[in-house]
């Protein structure tokens, strides 16, 4: 299949961009959840 490498590269780019973006969102969420828990702990301890 001619130009298969380019087709494969484009295909990988599409899902890599979406996947990496989703991973960054998930990581930011996890970090925020940790920070929220830490603040709640501070409030409980007064």
């Amino acid at each position, binding site marked *: 299949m001619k130009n298969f490498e380019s087709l494969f590269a484009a295909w990988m780019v599409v899902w890599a*961009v979406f996947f990496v973006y989703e991973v960054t969102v998930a990581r930011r969420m996890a970090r925020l959840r940790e920070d929220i828990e830490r603040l709640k702990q501070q409030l409980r301890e007064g």
Partner: protein
Amino acid sequence: MKARLALVLAVAALIFFAGYAALFIAPDEKTMHAIQRIFYFHVPSAISAFIAFFIVFIANAAFLVTRKPQWDWLGVAGAEVGVACCTVVLITGPIWARPVWGIWWTWDARLTSTFILWLLYITYLLLRGLLEDPQRRATLSAIFGIFAFLDVPLVYLSNRLWRTQHPQPVILGGENSGLAPGMGKVLLICWIAVVCVMILLVVDRYCLERLRHDYEELRFEVESRSAAAQSIGKER
């Protein structure tokens, strides 16, 4: 949580099927052959970017009217996901162009206006990072977001209004435009798959912004209590 997992798996299955349809079911294009199959993810990503930026436009206008922070959260969610979709368009386009046109990039009206669109929403996101006060940040970025959306119809019309290296529209184009029936069906499947991914990402990004709001409120409460405790200590 189970419902979300089921949804993610359903979208993953749809992506897999869309990929299979684009690579093996769609008919071969007579002049470009295999490389033309980039079309099945390039075009849906562009349409998804337009939808995401339209969400930003609606959310920003709604924020300016209602002043509810939820609209601001939706605006930033749409902008980030729109930038991701636009990035896909700007990378897959040159990969397709190189073997077909012999060049990676040219500054024609369609390509330039798409690049400007990407830059505008990057600026929108950078602007938000520069402003500390939430109300000021939401108001200024809402105004900027509405202004940035003006480029979307320009991108859409660019290859209709001007002669461009980018091909003339095959969907909603002139009399001699259109797709072979097999291509149209595969494009529809791929478009649904990419839009589903886009919606999932917007929902996740919205949840992140809501979480950030909760964090800011809690931080304010902790800081207020600590300031109050310090002032009581000084009085004693």
